[in-house]
């Protein structure tokens, strides 16, 4: 086991971890404002991957050969917009009516699971009726799989881009939260939703914005995930969503930086443990959740653990 091998595992781990981080940010943001675990968020990531696939299909006439960067990023843009709209729609159609009626949080949680089933079934129907099968191969410009050789390391371009992109997005989200008016409103809402409403702030707009932002990040995470493992299906969001949720909890739910750190840790554990102990390869899903239990044993509020009643984000 040489240094090159260890470095390779670390790079792969961070790459997978940043995909989890992108999705985990959505969990954390929504939890921050509504105290709701949005279990449909994993499926929102699937919607992101599928809408990018469908957009690419339309742009290339369903041939998928010679995808240019321009076409690809147009599709990514369309996917981000569509997914954000889907995110807002889930809030407006499912959560808001319940919140307005003062339903208990547990009803919201069950509704989230319902939305999750709805999205899975909807895309199952779309995939089987119009795309020709549950499983689809995901296509992207060949440049992303160009392999860079650094010493004994073989690194596909995608593996480097995703973590860098994640860090930039994290900085962007932190900028929005701390330097813009919307961000201040989001933090205020997280602090005390009723007082913010009394002050005359448009809480619906702010919550809608949070859903759109979380969904857009999930779309980017979903597309990156589909590029790393180029097979998409309507149920892909289930396990990935659960792991991203675990990442958000490990990092300290409610904290954006914590979600990113949690994502990195989880991705790293999932790649490194089978890498160093290949015999355990088949159990890799279990590690994510064992890690979750261990972190919570020692730090019940997660790594960036925050006192929930005093501070958000």
């Amino acid at each position, binding site marked *: 086991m040489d240094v090159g091998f260890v470095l390779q595992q670390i790079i792969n781990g961070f790459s997978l971890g940043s995909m989890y981080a992108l999705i985990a940010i959505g969990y954390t943001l929504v939890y921050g404002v509504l105290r709701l675990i949005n279990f449909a968020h994993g499926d929102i990531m699937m919607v992101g991957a599928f809408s990018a696939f469908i957009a690419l299909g339309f742009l290339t006439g369903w041939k998928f050969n010679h995808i240019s960067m321009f076409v690809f990023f147009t599709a990514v843009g369309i996917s981000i917009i569509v997914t954000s709209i889907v995110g807002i729609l889930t809030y407006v159609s499912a959560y808001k009516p319940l919140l307005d009626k003062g339903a208990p949080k547990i009803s919201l949680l069950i509704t989230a699971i319902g939305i999750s089933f709805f999205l899975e079934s909807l895309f199952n*129907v779309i995939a089987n009726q119009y795309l020709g099968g*549950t*499983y689809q191969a995901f296509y992207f410009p060949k440049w992303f799989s160009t392999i860079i050789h650094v010493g004994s390391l073989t690194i596909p371009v995608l593996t480097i881009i995703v973590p860098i992109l994640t860090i930039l997005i994290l900085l962007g989200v932190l900028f929005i939260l701390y330097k813009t008016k919307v961000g201040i409103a989001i933090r205020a809402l997280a602090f005390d939703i009723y007082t913010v409403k009394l002050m005359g702030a448009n809480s619906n707009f702010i919550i809608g914005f949070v859903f759109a932002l979380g969904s857009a990040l999930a779309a980017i995470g979903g597309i990156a995930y589909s590029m790393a*493992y180029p*097979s998409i299906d309507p149920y892909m969001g289930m396990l990935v969503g659960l792991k991203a949720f675990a990442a958000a909890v490990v990092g300290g739910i409610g904290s954006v930086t914590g979600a990113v750190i949690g994502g990195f840790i989880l991705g790293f554990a999932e790649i490194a443990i*089978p890498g160093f102990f290949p015999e355990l*390869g*088949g159990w890799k899903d279990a590690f994510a959740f064992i890690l979750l239990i261990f972190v919570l044993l020692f730090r019940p509020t997660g790594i960036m653990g925050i006192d929930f009643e005093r501070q958000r984000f």
Partner: protein
Amino acid sequence: MKKLVALGLSALVASTLMAKDIKVGILQPLTGPIASFGQKTLDGIKLIHSKYNTLPNGDKIKLVVVDNQFDKIQTVNGYKRLVSDDNVVAVEGPLASSMSLAVKRFANDTKTPTVTQIATNPRVTAGTKYITRACFTDPFQGKVAATYALKHGLKKAVVVFDMKQDYSVGLAKAFMKAYKKGGGKIEKVLFINTGDKDFNAQVAQIKRLHPQFIYTPIYAPEEGLFLRQLRAAGVKAPVMGGDGIADPALLKKLAGSAANGVMYTDHFDAIKPPTPLSAEFIKEFKAKYHRLPSAFAATGADGYLLIYNAIKKCDTPANSNNLSQFKQCVANAIRHTKHLEAVTGYLTINPKTGNPIDKPAVIEKIVNGKTQFVELVRP
């Protein structure tokens, strides 16, 4: 006027007496991960049903199609619905061993004759009188693969199986038993989970071991990505799977050129029709769907033929008024099928085990996204 009414009534009574509908349930995965298997099966069933839907006494067989989504809960719910709401006489399905095992208890409890046309795990039909299969079993399929590998001098193998699937676990065991018996050496047994997308841990180990042969009794969605990652890592050893990867189109879509050269054992190849009915079936299938029938379509048709043949024997006036008696008769008749001309060959069921006797297997190879016939193996 009275006469007319009486005439009308008697005509009505006569017609209901003469042509009655007999319902047969079809429980297959029409959506979900292996939807393409279910759809192909349904194509075969529909074609054979259009030929054989009327019994000699004028009764018609009606299909009640239910989707099980390749999910155990949906399978059991669908099965219960067919049996208690639709009052079917027999059920064809569900495809896949894990799903068939899930309904085994309900088939026994409700005494419903069930033909699981392509579930290969031996436990599916063991210890029950009501589930019968129309295909070979995994011990045979595993032996065919092991024999083929050993015959070609491939004596060091790695096995990769899916620990969530009864089919995969059983077939892996069967292969290893036959392979070791024939003098081969199993270097390592690796496992994956249904729905996995990252196989780099397994591939890294395979690369280190330099096996001569890789046996993968898993399903096509996992096989596609596994092949892609295996070949990308530079492993060139031949790969073989069971009938669970018999979806060349999906493998090509997911694995691209990495699907080339992959072999699998299957139930039927349309270029070798074993019976006159088979030749006719292939011709009509081609005319209707513009492609050759796969093994799924062929076994789907065979499962239906077993049921049709049994209903033909049992559709007596005494039985048609008593559903449970009818079902019992059909279950017995299916188990005592002898030399029935079907699409994949002549079917003779062993009444004790519920397995067909003498079903051959074919070995297929994927070349440029199409299947190529390699050889036919008789038991």
